[in-house]
């Protein structure tokens, strides 16, 4: 049997007063999985846990069958796009994007070629020489995406990656990410607040409620009624709001 890309087993972690409680999730290779949930429900902590950010926890997180904390960070081949982007503010956009290639000691021509390719996909060619401090929110987001995507990671973890983009740019990004996903066959785990986005992008969707991952379902069945009242409430609340807006 082939090992799933991500396997989380009975995973719990305590951070201050917050607890991520008994998470079980398996994401197969090339799958796109979306995580929905109220603010503060633990979505970012879940993503960081998959990336192996934390050391003190119970249970297990494995990437392709290997415990994530046993793989040296630099060998995990994960792309992580943080909610606040985590750009290196002492480097220009170009240096940010080509950082991973510089670490791999790729030559200048190759870096330039790859950066141009990314710039075209994400339309950020015009800001290559700017520093992160001067960028708009959407430009930062796309820079962070480019920096992660340029290495073709096996696993792409994105925390609300499209939240500060306008509808038409968002639309374009959906298509580009889908295209990248198709070409490179990476596995994607991402967080979003947008039900529509989750359904458009993901194969499956999980809903976080108070540190628990509940109601994992196929994205087509997102609004299906279930026993869990909190989930129904969360989904319905969002649905009503959508209709009103």
């Amino acid at each position, binding site marked *: 049997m082939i090992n799933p890309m991500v396997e989380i087993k009975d995973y719990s972690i305590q951070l201050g007063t917050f607890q991520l409680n008994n998470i079980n999730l398996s994401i197969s290779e090339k799958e796109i999985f979306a995580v929905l949930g109220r603010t503060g429900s633990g979505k970012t902590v879940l993503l960081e846990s998959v990336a192996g950010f934390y050391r003190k926890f119970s249970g297990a997180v494995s990437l392709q069958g290997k415990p994530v904390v046993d793989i*040296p960070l630099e060998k995990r081949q994960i792309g992580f796009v943080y909610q606040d982007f985590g750009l*290196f503010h002492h480097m220009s956009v170009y240096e940010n994007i080509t950082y991973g290639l510089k670490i791999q000691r790729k030559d200048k021509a190759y870096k330039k070629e790859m950066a141009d390719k990314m710039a075209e996909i994400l339309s950020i060619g015009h800001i290559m020489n700017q*520093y992160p*401090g001067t960028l708009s929110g959407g430009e930062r987001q796309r820079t962070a995406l480019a920096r992660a995507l340029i*290495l073709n990671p096996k696993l792409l973890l994105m925390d609300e990656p499209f939240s500060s983009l306008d509808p038409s740019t968002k639309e374009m990004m959906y298509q580009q990410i889908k295209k990248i996903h198709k070409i490179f066959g990476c596995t994607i785990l991402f967080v979003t607040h947008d039900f529509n986005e989750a359904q458009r992008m993901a194969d499956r969707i999980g809903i976080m409620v108070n540190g628990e991952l509940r109601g994992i379902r196929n994205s087509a069945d997102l609004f299906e009624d279930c026993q869990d009242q909190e989930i129904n409430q969360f989904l319905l609340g969002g649905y009503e709001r959508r209709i009103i807006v």
Partner: protein
Amino acid sequence: MKERFSVFSFFEIFTIIITIIVIIFTSVLILAIVLKGLPYLGQAFYSEEVRFAVKLSLYTASISTIICMALAIPTAYALTRTSFPFKKVCQMIIELPLSMPYLVLGLSLLIVFSSDFGKALKELGFKVVFDKNGIIIAQTVVNLPYVIRFIRTAFQEVDERLEFISGSLGATKWERFITITLPLSKNAIITTIILAWSRGLGEFGATLMLVGATRMKTETLTTSVYLNLATGDTGASMASATIILIISLISLFLTNWIGRKNPQESRMKDVNQ
């Protein structure tokens, strides 16, 4: 922009008066040295003794600063980025000398280097007691806890998630340190270098205990102030003091200038300053 001229409250006036008193007191101290010392400054440069002291001070302070940095950067990294048993205790031991009088530190140095260990070192050709090596060691020991604390704080302020991202992009721990942690604490490190250097120049207590005050042999600028005053040569003493003051002023200016200069562009640059 309506309230351009705010009326001072009593409390504000009180703080301003206190500030003025502090400023007057400090200025008097500085002026005392400058006014007394300036006339002797010219002749001091022709004095072989003062020239010797300047050279010795610059030399020892530079070397001790280099040693301090070489020891402090790895230590600060270990203290902020690795976990090992009894870390808190280690940190306390490292910072203990911060609260110790330099005279006492000098005394413990003297005890260590006059022991059999010190004698063995001397046999091997490394003289410490009554030697300029001793000056370097005294300055290093006095400065090291400060330097470690500054650099540790600088490393702590670097967002560890940036290092995590750097690692996820393939960088080893060493590469993360070189490309992220170190550049992001660059300003603090430069400031620390200047501070360590000027503190090294001003060191006296520990140096005196370890190497004594021998004219033209272990005579640093501060020792020169002391020696010349003791022998009644106020002029030479004042001249050396003025040179120390000038060096301190330059380093103070440099630290402020580096602190203000922000290499990373920001959209807030007009708002913040």
